[in-house]
Every structure is written in structure tokens, then in C-alpha cells.
């Protein structure tokens, strides 16, 4: 029965990858990275039970904990870039 889930997860990973390659905006790519992360957590949990090695769940736990650091870094990146652009424009706007 794990094969059903593993198969669905793999197909979804493929779909997310197509979305990541097609884009069109950068945010679509971030979205698919994020989605890929959760799919990897599910896939690893399923593989751990398929292989009969529940200690592999540590790996899924690691991904569940630190996957969103990447997305937060992206948000911080865009915010500080927006702030920098505002600052660059400010001297020109001043009379």
C-alpha cells in the first residue's frame, strides 16, 4: 500500500519540477521548491517504512524542521532588496 503513496508523491514531484522549470515568475519557482520539500518529507517517510527502517524518519524530521529556512531567506532577500531600491531612489526624489 505504501507504493500507492510513493507513486503519487513521485508524480507530484515531477509536476512540481515542471512548474519550477516553466516558471514564469521567480515566485512560482520558490513555490515549487517549497512543495518539493514537503513531498520529499512524505517520500522519505514512506521509503523508511518500505525499507523497514523506521530510524530513517530522522531524515524526514530534519527536512520538516529546516526546510522553510530557505523560503524565509527568500523573503528576507526580497525585503532587503526592496529597502535598498527605496534608498537608492530617495536621494533623487529629494529636492
Amino acid at each position, binding site marked *: 500500500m505504501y507504493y500507492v503513496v510513493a507513486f503519487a508523491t513521485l508524480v507530484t514531484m515531477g509536476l512540481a519540477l515542471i512548474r519550477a522549470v516553466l516558471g514564469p515568475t521567480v515566485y512560482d519557482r520558490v513555490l515549487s521548491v517549497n512543495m518539493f520539500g514537503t513531498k520529499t518529507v512524505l517520500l522519505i517517510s514512506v521509503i523508511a517504512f518500505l*525499507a*523497514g*527502517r523506521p*530510524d*530513517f524518519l530522522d531524515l524526514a524530521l530534519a527536512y520538516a524542521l529546516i526546510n522553510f529556512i530557505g523560503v524565509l531567506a527568500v523573503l528576507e532577500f526580497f525585503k532587503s532588496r526592496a529597502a535598498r531600491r527605496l534608498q537608492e531612489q530617495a536621494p533623487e526624489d529629494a529636492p
Partner: protein
Amino acid sequence: MELLGLYHYWVFAILLMIGFYAVVAKVNLVKKLIGLSLFQAAVFLLYITMGKVSGGTAPIFQDGVTDAVFSNPLPQVLILTAIVVGISTTALGLGIVVRIKEEYGTIEEHEIQEIDRR
């Protein structure tokens, strides 16, 4: 299945050469470093693939299981350390790129060479 017995090695070869292409052909220094990490990942994949034994499992003994077949632990040890070394050296490369950007104002290879020629 016989036909696909070498598939992992083919993927290794292709990934290696994709990384190689990025290193030799691209002029952007950050892109070169990204290519280098692809190249690195391909080598990791080669090592881990070689250590796999059919029907084997991860080389961690389990209580009450005595007849398990284990994959080769040695490539895993080498690659485990290599991943952390890889990120440190990539960071060193990125540090050099940042300094180049600060001194030359660009990270495109041909522009840097032009500035050097002057």
C-alpha cells in the same frame, strides 16, 4: 533490468559533464560555482552508487536482525565528510567572488580580464 544496470553511472556521467559545461563555458563567476557544485554532486552520486549492494540496507546494525546484507560503509564515510567540506569550499569561492565584485565592479569573466589588461 539488465539494460538499466548502468543507468546510475550514465546519470553520473551526464551530471558531471553538465557541471563541467557550466564551469568552462559560462562567464559568470557565481554560475561557475553553481556548476562546480553540480560537478561535486555527480561525484558524490558515483561513490554512493558504487557502495550499494542489491537487497542491502544501510550499514547500521539493528537489534534482533542478524541476517541483514549491508551496503558498503566506506564510500558513505568519504562522501559524508565531503559534503560539509564542499559547502565550506563553495563558501570560500563565493567569498572570493564577492571580493572580486567589490574590487572590479563586475563578476563577468571577460569584463574582469578587460579591466586587468588596461
